[in-house]
């Protein structure tokens, strides 16, 4: 068990810090949360800066255009960029963390050459078309149909909870290509251009008042057969590759950010006198223990991934269960610190308290995560 960093890792960290200190002041101001085209431009510009400096696709394999960095270097990158206040991955999330790694793992040479470089440069934005109104936790129940017609699939159906759909160029789309097959075996993975005729995007308003995601309606959309990643009907397996990436390191930067928010809560509580309330003070202390341990668990999981050749393990489900709950606890504590101000929707902590409510639902609900932990790690029998 070693928590120290090698000379090479420390040198990597030092170079990264120097670069961040140099470029971050040159970054244009962050656009308003409602300005989606502006947010896309901002996130794409940051991705281009990363690309030019050699940090794009750090954890991607070298033959996919990435840097082939170790999981530890990737952890250092996520930690340092968050600490420096650099932009979050934002609109590039699906491209860099889902679609890109899937194409890198399962795509042909031509498909990798077509789609990976624009993701790394920030030129093309991806969104995710997995969930449907009747296929949420039970994703394999998806019904969006793709019927072969010559050299294209004709796709009809609807997708939901699609983040960045309004500004995306491509959608990683799960469709049913064989309605007769057992449900996990009739699914295919397609790269669908969002500007194709028949694609309609309808933004959904979240309880936070913003339009973070959308419904996507597909009416006889033609997608070339060459846009299919992996074999026909093999999309479920291809997708599982993607989901394990999502649960691996997706929240590393957020843990760093939560620890910063917690320190701000403590400072605010000291200033407004609430620190003298022992119950609240110990609650903040307890959260400090929690997030420090979540950081250690991250280091544990990353070290495990490093030993197994970069494949994220089931530790991601353990982490997500505890982290999503801790994040909600953090902002409930923030409301205690704020007192009367906790009802002011304009306060950033109040907005974050609202958005934290999605964490126990998105990317696999806590209930589904517990099923995964119980069945895949503990070996309990499947059932209801």
């Amino acid at each position, binding site marked *: 068990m070693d928590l120290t960093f090698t000379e090479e890792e420390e040198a990597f960290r030092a170079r990264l810090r120097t670069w961040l200190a140099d470029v971050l002041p040159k970054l244009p101001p962050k656009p308003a949360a409602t300005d989606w085209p502006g947010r896309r431009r901002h996130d794409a510009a940051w991705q281009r800066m990363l690309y030019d400096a050699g940090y794009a696709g750090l954890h991607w394999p070298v033959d996919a255009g990435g840097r082939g960095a170790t999981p530890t270097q990737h952890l250092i990158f996520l930690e340092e960029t968050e600490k420096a206040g650099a932009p979050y991955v934002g609109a590039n999330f699906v491209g860099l963390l889902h679609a890109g790694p899937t194409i890198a793992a399962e795509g042909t040479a031509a498909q990798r050459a077509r789609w990976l470089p624009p993701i790394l440069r920030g030129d093309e934005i991806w969104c995710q078309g997995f969930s449907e109104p009747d296929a949420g936790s039970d994703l394999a129940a998806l019904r969006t149909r793709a019927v072969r017609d010559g050299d294209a699939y004709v796709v009809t159906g609807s997708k939901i909870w699609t983040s960045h759909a309004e500004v995306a160029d491509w959608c990683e789309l799960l469709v049913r290509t064989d309605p007769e097959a057992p449900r996990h075996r009739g699914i295919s993975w397609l790269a669908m251009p969002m500007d194709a005729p028949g694609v309609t995007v309808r933004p959904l308003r979240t309880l936070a008042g913003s339009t973070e995601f959308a419904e996507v309606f597909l009416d006889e959309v033609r997608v070339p057969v060459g846009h299919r990643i992996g074999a026909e009907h093999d999309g479920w397996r291809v997708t599982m590759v993607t989901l394990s990436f999502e649960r691996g390191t997706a929240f590393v930067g957020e843990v760093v950010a939560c620890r910063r928010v917690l320190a701000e809560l403590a400072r605010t509580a000291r200033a407004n006198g609430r620190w003298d309330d022992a119950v609240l*003070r110990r609650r903040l202390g307890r959260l400090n223990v929690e997030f420090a341990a979540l950081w250690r668990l991250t280091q544990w999981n990353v070290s495990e991934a490093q030993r197994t050749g970069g494949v994220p393990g089931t530790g991601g489900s353990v982490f997500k269960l505890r982290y999503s709950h801790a994040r909600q606890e953090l902002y409930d504590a923030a409301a205690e610190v704020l007192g009367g101000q906790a009802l002011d929707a304009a306060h950033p902590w109040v907005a974050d308290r609202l958005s934290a409510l999605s964490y126990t639902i998105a990317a696999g609900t806590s209930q589904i995560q517990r099923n995964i932990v119980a069945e895949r790690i503990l*070996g309990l029998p499947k059932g209801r």
Partner: protein
Amino acid sequence: MDFQLTADQRALRDGTRELLTGRFDRDRLRAAVDDPALDRALWRELADAGFFALRLPEADGGVGLGLPEAVLVFEEAGRALLPGPLVAGHLLAGAVDGVATGERIVALCDGSAEPVLCEHPADCDLLIFLEGSAPEHVGRARQSAPAEVAHAPYASVDPLTPLARVTDSAHGTPCDGLDVPRLRREAALLTAAQQLGSAARTVEMAVGHARQRTQFGAPIGSFQAVKHLCAGMLVRAELARAAVYAAAVTGDALDVAGAKLLADEAAVHNARDCLQVHGGMGFTWEADVHLHLKRAWLRAAAWGGAQDATERWADALVD
């Protein structure tokens, strides 16, 4: 960074588990419940296996290993519910003659606790008291022969850990060579390691029962209500593991306090959930679940509790 067990550490853990499975099996455990007097032959075997001399230099007859290795060994002790003042034996092996070899059994008592409790009073050859109260814990250590210490009977909730309430410990001889803050810190860490072992063991016990026990025509582990209890138990144990192992690597006092808090929670709540999964059987004397829960309560009360840890971690936010 490589925050995983090394091959040597895994071998040490597996070897310790094998030793304890062989020398302290369920029959021995239940025999100890009926008669909690320590088995001196077993104690010397533990000493021979390096339990106490683990961190003493090889030149002094020790094994020359570090705190992470000690944590792995104590995790196994917690798993097996191995009774006795093991932490004291390990921490005082280099300071008190005969302890490293298992010939003498020594107890370490927290003189700042209220009441001051001493475990296995009838078995100990020497008692060492640590003075000083939270949070600084600066104080001295004193030693006494058990006969010189006034104590009153105390009906221990844990059948494996007889206790006495010390009523006057002020007359012992000062032992100036001992680093009291370090003893407290390491006692807390090794106690947390035992809690971690217990927390991991009760997950296995609950899962084992849930796979085997059939109701409504199916193993109860196929029902989500039971499944989710078990998943929650694993999450608690794994978060505690990350914290305890990290504290073993850093040796930092704050890390130790946080790790103890999480390990205490994991051990107590996992034992409770394990009891729940076992249903009526879990409420019986015959099942081992209550032994984990009661020991977890005792350990949670020793060497720094939740209030102390949360206050220290709150202070750390504003330092």
